[in-house]
């Protein structure tokens, strides 16, 4: 299954891209995807000391034990700053 991951704001700077697609042969939980992302880009772990990292699945905050589905879009964002 394919999961698209989008990065925003300061996180996009830390990973050096705004979007990446992961392919998995088995089911995966959100928490497992986040670990993969942090392993691929360890600088995110350092950033987490200063900034909370939030994951949205299809635009909504979800429990980290959520089972992701084929075609889901995950956004990795810092706290928002509209206005």
């Amino acid at each position, binding site marked *: 299954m394919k999961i698209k991951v*989008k990065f*925003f*704001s*300061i996180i996009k*700077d*830390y990973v050096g891209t705004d979007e990446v697609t992961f392919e998995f042969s088995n089911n995966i939980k959100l928490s497992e995807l986040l670990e993969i992302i942090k392993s691929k880009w360890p600088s995110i772990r350092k950033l987490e000391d*200063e*900034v909370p990292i939030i994951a*949205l699945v299809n*635009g909504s905050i979800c429990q980290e034990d959520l089972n992701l589905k084929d075609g889901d879009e995950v*956004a990795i*964002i*810092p*706290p*928002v*700053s*509209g*206005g």
Partner: protein
Amino acid sequence: MPEGKVVTSDIDIHKIIDEMINEASKRGGGALTIFIGYVKGIVDNCEVYSLNYEVYEPYASKKLQEIAENACSNDKVIDVRIYHKVGTFKPGDKVLYVLISSIDRTSGIETLREVIEKVKKSVPIFKLECRSDGDYWIISDNLRIKRR
């Protein structure tokens, strides 16, 4: 009708004001409360050159619409409009409009404050501030982190 959305060009605020007052006056309205947010020219004693807004669509517009509709569930609130611009802006450029038409001033002012707080804390919109001492990511309300 309540409306909240991200916009890429300026809005005709006078036309919207007239529309809202005309409609609310037929439904017992007596107050139109307006907030206009614009780009600061000075922050931390430094000159601001520009403010860039990055938006996660379609979820930002969906959230703005949800905030506008929820605010209208108050019996004293007649209509709510929220328009948030996206792009790069200079000091003084208007970037956020919130308009509340209501039965009275108290409900209008209270609802305005609640709506602005929700826009600032729950809509996936992000800011990069470019100023005389460097570029800063703005995180939540007040945290600024210098761009690497």
